[in-house]
């Protein structure tokens, strides 16, 4: 007889999906907006958290309703809240 496995209780429905290619490109799926945009720092709202990307020559490569793609030389990735 098969054993019942315990259900996964983590809720990942609202969490952003962050994908990095080295330190040159970062794709954030599930972003709800851009809060701050400068070549040295980009802050993104991602559900109930704020994602801060710091680096040099940062630029938004693609902006859509739920996805933001940042390119540049990324030096720091920080979750502010």
């Amino acid at each position, binding site marked *: 007889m098969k054993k019942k496995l315990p259900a996964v209780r983590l809720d990942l429905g609202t969490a952003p999906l962050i994908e990095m290619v080295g330190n040159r490109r970062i794709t954030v799926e599930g972003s709800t907006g851009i809060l*701050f945009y400068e070549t040295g720092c980009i802050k993104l709202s991602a559900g109930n958290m704020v994602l801060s990307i710091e680096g040099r020559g940062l630029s938004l490569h693609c*902006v859509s309703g739920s996805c933001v793609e940042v390119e540049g030389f990324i030096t720091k990735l920080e979750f502010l809240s």
Partner: protein
Amino acid sequence: MLVSILRYIKGSVRFTATGNSPERLLNLAAARGVPLWNPQPVEGGISAGMPARDYRAIRPMAKRARVRTKVTNKRGLPFVLRKCRGRAGLLAGAAAGVILLVVLSQFLWSYEIVGANHVSEQAIRDVLAQNGIVQGVSKASIDVEQAERASLRKLDTLSWMSVNIQGCTACVEVREKDKKPDIKSLNPANIKASRDGVIKEIRARQGFTQVQKGSGVIKGQLLVSGINPTKQGGTRYVRADADIMAEYTEEKSLNLPKQFDYYSISENKIDRRRLKILWLELPASLSFGGFEHTAYTFREEALQIGGKTVPLSLRTETACELTLQTVSLSKAQAERVFRRHLLLMELFCQPDTKVVNRQITVKETKAGYSCTAICTNCENIAQTAEFSVTE
């Protein structure tokens, strides 16, 4: 690349949004599905590109985001066309040019023949024209395989032909037939005299000479034999080979009238030029009038651009007036005419014959002049006559 082309066709603008929170404009545009590309932070705001037709749509968003937008660059076909709005002729010309290009590309502009070294190119062109390959013909009407087959059937000197149509030009590649090699017969043969004469020189390379220098021979006489009886009582057969130079006399005569008419080309000429575009011919000069008797010459000069012949040529027709002239011959003139006639005869009819002596007599008759020449000629009278060994 494709995206750039599409953006150019649709038209795009680049704008700068300045204010307190230009990022909000980006969020609002993204939320409403307005595409923005390449957003860049600039002093006091953000610069981004977008489709030209969506620019009006971001005005309410800019108001909501409390930013001011300003177009910095316009690019694309709609803006180019807007500039040409008052110039209908320019657009009509461009459209006519495109139509002309499309229509003209349906025809064969020119073709070249490659590989014809000994066969006349004009002969090949004539046969190709009979089979539908001619300058200015519609490409759709050309049946290449049928034309190749039919042309090869008519041109016996060609062994292979390929018509390759490339764009508006064609390359007709031909291969000539190889000539049959001269196969020397090894059958035994005699040398006989091709005509009567007196032998002046004998150069026998093979065979057994039956005559001597100074001998008089008649046509068909055996000169060099290919049969040699051996000491053992047998017979040896060879193929006789020799040059037998013999002298003979020949009489030639020509009757010339004292007075005769002939047409000569005068200085009066009329040039008529015609502009030829594919199959269409238009007069390019105003030359009227004509002559009673005319000889025509034609010259066609085709325009070439970058080594390619374009279907534009100038055809010049020159009409030369022929005038009727009456000539009266004196006896001396008649002799000169006859002498020239003899020289031409010797040059073209007897190229291998050496004239040793020539005696010309001109007699005046009622009808004109009777010219007679007694020529002493020297030529090779050796004629190979094969024989069967079984005879």
